[in-house]
Structures are given as structure tokens and as C-alpha cells.
């Protein structure tokens, strides 16, 4: 299995979780940002609220992938774990040079962890490769952007769902989905807990595949639900500051 990875906190969570669980991608195509401006999913190191993050696995059953280092260098992580990688010729996954590179790879499935807000167009989906993506929300109810802030407001939970990408947003068949209780430190949702929830579902999805030798689907018909758009900061603040009862880990 290969991996398409942008230099984001989500990628850092994924790679550290994969290494921790002894699941090494055979190849990583890395998207780096050489500009001064942060791209969606990247972090200014000073904005992490948690005092310290370690790579020790958490004892919390639901948040088992919470303890990762969000400011580690992706390249250092890959090099330390001896995972082969190359830098992408473009930041745009839909660029023909990138499509050609992916087409020529022997891996048939790629874990997808690109920059935020990017949609895969027909050309890359037509390569015949499968792109395993973990959406930050419980499908099919919560499609679109920043859905975990909405679900925290509506039922005090977060979610993550693994899918194979299709042209329509968050509508591919669901391999596995989980609900997560509201974390203790809601200030770190963007770069820690959203990533940690997705990493947990990624690991569970891969473990299920390794055990059975095939991809099984929890929900083939991923229809219905709502498409959400970037949450307004007033609602984001209410979601973070609310002190609701923790929901169960499902």
C-alpha cells in the first residue's frame, strides 16, 4: 500500500500511528509547501494549546492515537522509520505530472492525506487506483467541512469515517466509522483530536483489512445526511467552550 501525504498535522498523526502499529507504507508521495503562507491543514507551531505531546500510546480506548507530536517533521518521521518517499513535483494532486507518477506505481491502494479542501478530479480517479481517505465526521450524517464542530454542538460527539474517494464529496462507500466522545481539551480539535480520531479509524480499517485480506464495507450506500460548510467562528467558539456531557465511545 502507498500513501499520498501533504505536510500537515493529519499526516503526522497518520504516520506516527502507522509506525506505532507496525503498518509501514511501501511508498509515500510527499507534498511539501515551499511558500511562506500555511496551507489548509498546516500548523503554526505556537498555536498548539496542549502543553506537551508524546508518542506514547494513550490508555484511553477511544483516543488511542491522541498522543502524537503535531510539530514533528514529516520527512524526519519517514526517514527514521525507513519508509521510502519522494517529493511530489507539484502541490496539486490533480496535476498531470502527479497523476503520471501515481499511475506508474505498482501499489493499487493509497492512503490519502492531502492538503485540506482538495477534491480529486476525474483524471486521477480514472487511474484505477483506490484512494483510502478518512473523513473527519460520522457518515452519512456529517458530510463536508468542519463537521466535528457541528456534531459537538448537536450531540456532543465527534466522528471519523474511512471511505474510498469518489468525485462526489464524502460520498464513497464507508469502510468503517466511529463516534468519539468530546475530548477534554477542545481547543486542540483542529490539529490534534480531529487528526487523532481519523488516525484511529485509519488503523482500525487497515487492521480489519489485514485480518480478512479484503476490504469490507460497513455502509456501502453512503447516501443522505447533510453537507456542511466551514463553521462560523462564533459557533466554533461555542462548540469549544461548551461543557456538555461526554458521549460514549462507539
Amino acid at each position, binding site marked *: 500500500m502507498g500513501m499520498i501525504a501533504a505536510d500537515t498535522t493529519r499526516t503526522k498523526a497518520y504516520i506516527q500511528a502507522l509506525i506505532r502499529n507496525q503498518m509501514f507504507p511501501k511508498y509515500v508521495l510527499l507534498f511539501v509547501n515551499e511558500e511562506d503562507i500555511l496551507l*489548509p491543514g498546516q500548523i503554526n507551531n505556537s*498555536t498548539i*494549546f496542549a502543553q506537551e505531546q508524546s508518542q506514547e500510546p494513550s490508555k484511553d480506548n477511544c483516543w488511542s492515537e491522541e498522543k502524537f507530536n503535531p510539530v514533528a517533521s514529516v520527512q524526519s518521521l519517514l526517514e527514521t522509520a525507513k519508509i521510502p518517499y519522494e517529493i511530489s513535483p507539484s502541490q496539486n494532486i490533480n496535476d498531470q505530472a502527479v497523476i503520471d507518477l501515481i499511475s506508474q506505481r505498482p501499489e493499487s491502494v493509497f492512503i490519502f492525506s492531502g492538503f*485540506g*479542501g482538495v477534491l480529486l478530479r476525474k483524471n486521477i480517479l480514472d487511474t484505477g487506483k483506490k484512494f483510502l481517505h478518512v473523513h473527519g465526521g460520522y457518515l452519512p450524517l456529517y458530510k463536508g467541512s468542519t463537521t466535528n464542530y*457541528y456534531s459537538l*454542538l*448537536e450531540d456532543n460527539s465527534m466522528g471519523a469515517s474511512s471511505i474510498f474517494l469518489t468525485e462526489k464529496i464524502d460520498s464513497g462507500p464507508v469502510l468503517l466509522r466511529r463516534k468519539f466522545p468530546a475530548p477534554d481539551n477542545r*481547543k486542540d480539535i*483542529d490539529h490534534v483530536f480531529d487528526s487523532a480520531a481519523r488516525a484511529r479509524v485509519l488503523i482500525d480499517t487497515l487492521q480489519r483489512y489485514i485480518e480478512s485480506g479484503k476490504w469490507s464495507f460497513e455502509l456501502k450506500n453512503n447516501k443522505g445526511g*447533510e*453537507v*456542511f*460548510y*466551514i*463553521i*462560523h*467562528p*462564533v*459557533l*466554533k*467558539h*461555542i462548540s*469549544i*467552550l*461548551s*461543557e*456538555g456531557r461526554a458521549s460514549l465511545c462507539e
Partner: protein
Amino acid sequence: MIDYEYTQVNRLDEPHSYMYTKFEGHDFLNSYFDNRKINIERFQTIASNDGNTEVDSELIFKLMRHFETFFNEASVKAEDDWLLLFNWKDNRINAEFKTDSKILENMISVFTALNIEDVVKTEDLLNGLLANQLTGVQEVNTKEWLDRLVQRFEVSKKLYELYPPGFRKGSGSTKIVRLYWLFGLSLCLYYVATGSVKYLSTQLKISDLLCSLPEKQLIGQVSTQGLSMLLLAEIQSIKLLTLNIKGDLLDFK
């Protein structure tokens, strides 16, 4: 108090993406409340529109009754808060408007004839969405049309005068302020009826846009009383959502 950056520049000219907004704690929520308070005061100093007086009077009257009923049902405290907000300062929303049910009937009849396969005039659509909700017509296509508008607005942060068949990228002017006001009211009504926060989120962005506009862009297009009504209902919706938050938030009493 920290600055509320979302209304600091004209958002018709410089839309905000709202991506990865930073967390600023209680101070941010207080800056939001303060911003809306300042803008309600500002709107009161602007002469009311003279182009749609009869239509706007009807809408405002019905909206006032609608919100009153909703907040009454939400809780006794919510009703008390709404009345306090509503009577906050001399907000000039007059409860004694004359009513004419034909205005809303006409809006619904135009709305009913709209078809996704045709060019859609946005004002007809927005009038119909408001009238449908105010008269309790629970047609499924209220949500369908509202969702289409939400999608179009969230992608571009603009509302176009017209939408072509298929409701793809719009055409015509994007600076008809009245459309944003009507859209904000429709979203607010839909949120209070369904509790679906998605619509409140888009409404907040619409209110930011309206609050960012200079007087010259508001005059003649929007009922200033109606603008206050939109912000007051939004504030009350937000206040209801902040009940689980500890700490002092700005008081409108």
C-alpha cells in the same frame, strides 16, 4: 476587547474564507455580541428604506410574531430574553404594522412556479422561501432550494441576481444588498424551526457581510428595522446556544 475582524472591511468586496479561524476564548464571543450591538445602534441612525415599505412591513410584522412564538416555546427565560432584546433601547421595530396576507400569497405563487430547469430570479426565490416559512407551508422544496442557495453562497460568498438552469454559477449583480438580507432572514427562520446549526452558521456569515457594509450601500435596499430584527433573532439564537458555557458574556439588558 479584541477586534471582531469579520466585519472590519466590506465583505462584498473582500469576502472572508473563515478557514482555520483561531480560538480566542470568551473575549471573542463578547467581541461578537459587542459588534452586533454597535451595528444595531448604527442601523437605527440610517433612514429606513422607501422602496419596499409595504412588503417589508408585512415581512417584519410576521417575522416578529414568528420569532416571539419560537422563543416563547424555547423556554420562559428565552422568551424573557427575547422581550428584553426586542425592547433593548429604542429599537424602532413597530409592532403595529398593517397586515396584508395577499403579499405573502403572491410571493408563494411566484415561488411555486420556479423550476430548477429554468433561469431563477433570486429575489423571487428568496421572497418565496420567506413566505413559505412564515405561513407555515411545509413544502419539501423549501429545504431543497435553501440548500442550493447555501451551497452557492458558501462557495463564492456571494448571491447573484440570477441563477441559470441547473442552478450553477450565477449571473448579474452580486451587490444587491436586499438579497443578502432576505437570505439571512430565511436562514434564521429555518434554524429556529429545525435547530440545524448549519443554517445558523451561514446566517452568521450573511450578518457579518451586512454589518460590514457602509450606509450608502444599505440605504434604499434594506429595511433598517428589518436588519435589526435579523440581528436580534440571531443574537437570541446564539444566546440559547451559550447556555452550557461558564463565564460572563456581554449582557444586552
